[in-house]
């Protein structure tokens, strides 16, 4: 765990659509890298990310170890209005969880 982690999420209304950008804070260890002492670092990576707009589930992402460190995602949602609530939850293979929430601007 170490340093406190902070997940960032931004959602903005552009023209007709909502742009959502997410930056999660996670080491995403693949289980193949070695530390300074030549020991394998155990795998630790986000497996499941789900995203809701208000109460409607819009996106579900399953990640393997080949998702880069501190995963970044950007996608668009059709329509939407200012004040919509965007919620994102993630779970990693160790059972750690995170939640990020924002309101569409």
């Amino acid at each position, binding site marked *: 765990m170490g340093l406190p982690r902070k997940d960032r999420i931004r959602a903005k209304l552009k023209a007709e659509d909502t742009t959502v950008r997410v930056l999660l804070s996670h080491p995403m260890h693949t289980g193949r890298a070695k530390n300074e002492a030549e020991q394998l670092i155990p795998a630790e990576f986000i497996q499941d990310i789900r995203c809701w707009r208000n109460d409607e589930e819009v*996106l579900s992402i399953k990640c393997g170890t080949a*998702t880069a460190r501190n995963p970044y995602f950007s996608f*668009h949602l059709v329509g939407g209005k200012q004040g919509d609530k965007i919620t994102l939850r993630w779970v990693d293979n160790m059972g750690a969880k995170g939640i990020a929430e924002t309101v569409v601007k």
Partner: protein
Amino acid sequence: MAKNNMQQRRAILKGAISASTLALVAASGLLLPRQLLAHWPTDAFNAETVEDALLALLGQAEIADDSKVNFKVGSPPSYAINGASVPFQLESRLKNIERIAILVEKNPFPLAMSLELSPAVKLPIKSMIKIREDSAVIAIIRAEGKLYKTSRFVEVDIGGCG
């Protein structure tokens, strides 16, 4: 008779209560993550070839090549200095996209991520992946029951799958 019925009713009620508590416990995440994540497609992510991964993930490997997809990997496109974080962008004119899978052919486990989209999601989608060595990166889109494949070759200076 009435008493008997009452007892039966109690038993049913009790059963219902314990079932709903169990559901609550499961939903609140007190169970092991492995159980909760039963829907994480382990076989697909542990497959060592692109075909196996696709079969495990989508149950089919028959694919139509398509030009309606705009897929960029690396920056500048087709090149990455550091394989540990290679950006990609995927855009398409296809309608009703249900699922997207990103695979890196030469990675130890090719499947990098799999996205399930509701109709409310619109492309382009951007993210970052790890690439071990010079390799083809494949985007598979499933729209209206058909698979569309787009492939880009990427050169990597420093491999990123350590």
